[in-house]
């Protein structure tokens, strides 16, 4: 063994043998690491550019020539690609997401708070924790399968309810379930529940113990402490989780296909001002004929339109008229702003059939004609823009949170 002479520089750098090669390997690994990262991020960029290219947004297409025009957002789907748009899809997506949010946000937050603040250490609690962890790993299509089995086939069918329930309730409930917006909203709500629960737990866990102690010390009860002191501090973290969950629900396709989301919807679950509305007077049988054709009803006409009598004679009517009309008469009017706003009531749209943006995009993607693929690309850009924006907002919020709060 030769001694190393610290005075001679070459001896140290040359020791141990092969150091240069090892250092070269070490440095060159950075290239591999960066390359792998670039492949990942490059995919995202390629995806965006490919969609923009297919929708004629890139390179340098002037606004208006592209598929992604205002008309695209204001038209129903159609068999003519030049006429087709995503109106029913985005309205459906909004209604489904509102339902999802109303269901999943309160339940998710309450469950997260329970597990973090209240839950005793016992088998029930560990069962709940195991369930939450497993739910996060269940494929989304299985949520759709459960919804198909329970909400569509059983709850959507008045005949399959237990007999002791009153018939009126059975029918009303079956109208709401089935292949409806309510079913879709519940399904997606259950799907994103673990996301919100986990985010809430992390946010609540991050609130320091001193804050709870201070509140309890001045006589606040446990729930008062949680409600007024823990939750406000945990809010930004909770909101981050909610945004990520909702953005996931917006992009989900598979569970909604399972419950029978429609791929072609040319109507809206709500009414727009100016839409034609039809209202038939009296109780009708299944063929649309009045049960009691002799009966009449006194009706006040709300806005100008046409009345079609049971013998198919038409007569124009004006707003404010009060008429005695036989059962089976149809009043055709155009919806006013008041009618439109009244149609936003959940009881009006919860039970209706629906489509959503990912299903619409899927439908166009599975058609062979190039024009429909352009529409699919345009729908994809809208979807991608929404999800990337929402996730970007969540990332920014998390970043701000980490910077601003120093306990």
């Amino acid at each position, binding site marked *: 063994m030769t001694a190393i002479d610290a005075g001679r520089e070459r001896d140290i750098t040359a020791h141990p043998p092969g150091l240069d090669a090892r250092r070269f390997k070490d440095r060159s690994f950075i290239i591999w690491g960066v390359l792998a990262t670039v492949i990942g991020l490059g995919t995202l960029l390629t995806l965006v550019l*490919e969609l923009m290219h297919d929708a004629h947004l890139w390179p340098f297409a002037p606004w208006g020539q592209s598929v992604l025009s205002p008309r695209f957002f204001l038209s129903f789907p159609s068999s003519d690609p030049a006429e087709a748009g995503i109106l029913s899809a985005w309205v459906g997506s909004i209604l489904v997401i509102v339902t999802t949010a109303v269901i999943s946000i309160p*339940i998710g937050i309450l469950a997260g708070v329970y597990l973090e603040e209240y839950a005793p250490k016992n088998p029930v609690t560990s069962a709940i924790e195991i369930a939450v962890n497993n739910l996060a790993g269940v494929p989304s299509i299985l949520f759709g399968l459960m919804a198909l089995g329970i909400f569509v086939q059983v709850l959507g069918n008045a005949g399959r309810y237990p007999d002791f329930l009153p018939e009126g309730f059975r029918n009303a409930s079956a109208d709401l379930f089935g292949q409806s917006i309510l079913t879709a909203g519940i399904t997606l709500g259950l799907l994103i529940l673990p996301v919100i629960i986990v985010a809430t737990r992390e946010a609540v866990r991050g609130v320091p113990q001193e804050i709870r102690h201070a509140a309890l010390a001045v006589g606040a009860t446990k729930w008062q402490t949680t409600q007024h002191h823990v939750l406000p501090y945990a809010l930004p973290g909770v909101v981050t989780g909610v945004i990520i969950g909702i953005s996931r629900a917006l992009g989900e396709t598979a569970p909604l296909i399972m419950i029978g989301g429609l791929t072609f919807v040319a109507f809206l679950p709500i009414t727009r001002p100016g839409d034609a509305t039809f209202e038939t007077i009296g109780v009708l049988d299944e063929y649309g004929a009045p049960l009691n054709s002799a009966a009449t009803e006194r009706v006040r006409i709300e806005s100008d339109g046409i009345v079609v009598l049971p013998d198919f004679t038409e007569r124009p009517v004006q707003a404010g008229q009060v008429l005695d009309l036989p059962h089976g008469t149809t009043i055709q009017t155009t919806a006013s702003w008041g009618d439109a706003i009244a149609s936003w009531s959940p009881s009006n749209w919860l039970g209706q059939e629906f489509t959503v943006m990912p299903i619409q995009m899927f439908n166009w993607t599975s058609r062979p004609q190039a024009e429909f693929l352009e529409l699919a690309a345009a729908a994809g850009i809208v979807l991608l823009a929404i999800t990337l924006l929402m996730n970007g907002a969540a990332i920014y919020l998390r970043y701000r949170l980490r910077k601003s709060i120093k306990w």
Partner: protein
Amino acid sequence: MERDFTKSRLRVGERIMEGLLFVAAALAVAIVLGIVYVVVSESAKFFAHVSVFEFLTSTTWTPLFDNPQYGIAPLLSGTFMATLVALAVAVPLGLLVAIYLSEFAGARTREMIKPTLELLAAVPTVVYGYFALLFVTPLLQQWLRPLGIELPSFNLLSAGMVMGLMIIPYIASLSEDAMRAVPRSMREGSFAMGATRLETAFRVVVPAAISGVVGAVILGMSRAIGETMIVVVAGGQMPQMVTSPTQQGATVTAFMAQVALGDLPYGTLEYNSIFAAGLALLVLTLGFNFIAFWLQRRFREAY
């Protein structure tokens, strides 16, 4: 004046609130039970007509034919082929990213790259399906033609590759967490012996974090098994025994979506068959999740 310090009125409110919180949390258990109940009870109706033996051993899956055959094997072969391709893409890339971020990159770079990479998992899968069908497949067709391989326009190769890109963030992020949990003293010991960062990464950090890394890979795998839209759009919907990724084939999820897209009459054998497929999917994903969870628990080194 007598004041009521026991606050019995408040206590009732407290009780109600606590009950409400418990019900919300217990809902998670109810959902799991609901999924298991629906899938198992509807599958039971299926297995009343089709023997479990046929289901597990037959190699033909043609439930919509006149003479239906119910062997789950073709669907499983499609699922595993797509998952294998996905893992072939995601494991090397995900681990490279994880090692780079945990051992080489500075804190600022890591803070920037990690969330950006997680956007890959946020892209709606139907958009990925479009990308696989209309970008990756034509590209692969062009590349493979000189090699004498004709890639059909529906194939599991491009579907699997895009699925792999989708699960990179799961694998990278979870393995990076596991690697960063390895204590600094172990790295310093390695550096003190003269090892480079790369040698430390591969001989000290990765072996120490191996249970977390394997857990991350299995979770990514279970994500790929349950993925639906990419394979429905780009993988084809013909159930067949798949032996090569360049073939088209239906996965378990693709079959379920395909049947649901048609109007299926309640109570028929076809209707029940999607629940049997769902049962297979549930067993697979829960099984893998359990293994990942167990690995992370069992082999977590206590430092």
